[in-house]
């Protein structure tokens, strides 16, 4: 009886040990994945910030002003240089009766 119990406990011990090793392996794999995803996230955030700065640099007021006046011959708006637009909306659509 004692021998059988020992064998069962031994088997349980072995299963537990192997399971722990497996879990440890899984845990490390998940941590590695997590770290990789985290690094990727930081890299993308940094890239986003860089592109945001590039966008602002390309659209900075001095550059826009220079292109508008130099290339497009635009003028700075004053109340004296104004196009008055008359609002003429279409007639409202006829609503059908239910």
């Amino acid at each position, binding site marked *: 009886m004692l021998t059988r119990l020992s064998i069962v406990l031994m088997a349980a011990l072995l299963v537990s040990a192997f399971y722990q090793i497996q879990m440890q392996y899984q*845990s*490390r794999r998940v*941590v*590695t994945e997590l*770290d*990789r995803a985290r690094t990727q996230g930081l890299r993308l955030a*940094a*890239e986003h*910030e*860089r592109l*945001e*700065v590039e966008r*602002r*640099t390309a659209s*900075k*007021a*001095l550059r826009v*002003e220079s292109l508008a006046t130099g290339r497009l011959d635009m003028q*700075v*708006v*004053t*109340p*004296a*240089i*104004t*196009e*008055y*637009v*008359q*609002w*003429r*909306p*279409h007639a409202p659509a006829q609503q059908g009766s239910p």
Partner: protein
Amino acid sequence: MKSIRYTASPLLTSQAPVWRSKLLVVGLALMFLTMIARAAYVQVFDNAFFRHQGEARFVRTLQLPANRGRILDRNGLLLASSVVAPDVWASPADVDADLAQRRELARLLDMPLDKLQARLAATDKSFVWLKRHVDAPVAQQVADLKLAGIHQDKSYKRRYPEGEAVAQLIGFTDIENQGLDGVELSLDQRLAGHAGSRRVIRDRLGQVVEQLGEEVPPIDGQDVQLSIDVKLQSYAYQKLRDAVDAQGARSGSVVVLDAQSGEVLSLANYPSYTPGNRGELKGPHLRNLAVTDAFEPGSIMKPITVAIALDAGEVAPQTLIETAPGRYKLGRYVIHDTHDYGTLSVQGVIQKSSNIGALKIAQKLTPQRMWETYAALGLGRRPDIAFPGATTGQLRLWKDWRPVEQATMAYGYGLSASPLQIAHAYMAFANDGVLVPLSLLRRADAALVPGVRVFSVNTARAVRRMLQMAVEPGGTGTQARPVGYSVGGKTGTARKQVDGGYASRKYRAWFVGMAPVEQPRVVVAVMIDEPSAGHIYGGTVAAPVFRDVVQQALRIRGIKPDLVVEPAIVASSAAEEPS
């Protein structure tokens, strides 16, 4: 064949010596004892040492860098931000790149091949910088070369998208991203943040496989939102640059304040510099002249003199002042006007900018009264704004004034102030006599900012009316009038001090004013230093810059014109309703 049973083997019958088996047993026992002793030594007695050695091989403490906060304008547009820009370094002894690869590397790093070769020739060194703060796409191209002995460290670089237009205001950081000048320096603690860390176990491939203990998360620096409107700032910078170049001047400054909240909307200086180019980060052009340098203001002090006298009840707007014959002797000094204006009203003194008129008005006041009002307007005090090196200007205590000094201060000599201080002082006129503190940071609710009353409402309005007359025909600042908006302002043409005396042909041209004059929303000060292209007066050099900046400031702020405008182009068209 006859078999022999195992138990009957003749070999077993031979008698082995007992000492041999005992020796074997003792030997095995000693081996086990040694192993147990070693295990006890490793696990118990010197466990800390072995644990440390183990960790040294696999455990790493990773720094988690904190992002430096961004600097934004009042509308959330980016003025400064940190981007990844790796540092590239080499271990010369390990570099085996051929000439073509080295040439390609030199091209990517934008450095001469000779210089690169010289650095890589230092094979006795294990570390040499090749280039710091390389742009991320270029760093990726360098990495793609897969050169042995060429390494990269992660690093951040500060970028300033608006460039020179806001350079002296934003300032810059050093290569380690610590603020060195401007807002980057004054708000460094808020912007910097704190790095974090975490302890991890890495496998032989360098991958993180386990985290040990609690992670200390990085605390990113806070974003800072300034009161500056970058569109207005750029426009002001551009107009200032054009004026300084056209007038052959040394430099210039423009300050735009929100007349009600005290927020600084624009603070432009020219010449400026490109903050991303470290080669330019030295010399006088780094100074934010509008804040850090004090100048004698000249005639733009006259409205303040008049306001003090009005408030004291010594004069009224229509009080007559005799300025003939255009010269006035005070002790051993003779004060001149540009013309003989005869008898002027107090309004006329401002409109014509009469030195003698301002002097005679000041003579009705006590030095103490003048000094107290100057001090209340912020002259002689450091402005309370988040900017390093803001000047106090010069304003001596009234007890030390001589009569001639009191007289000259009435028209702006014998004291000094920065353009920011002057604009702030004029805010008292714009805000019906109440002076609101300045702010370089955007205020959440401008209505809650308490101010200090310096002048009565009637005095402030009377002075505004005089300032309006000064830009109308017959005044000195007619070129300051924009289209569609009423303005009031004062010209100033101050002689420069050189080597302790006044230079005969060197001037500073000023114009300070506000708009719309009935209910001012902006106060603008313009200073142009040493114009040399023929014009020297504030009314011809600085007033046009004021006009353009005011025009745009009011338009950008969405303030409707308060004057009837005859449109230069009138087109009438029908708009289609958007589908």
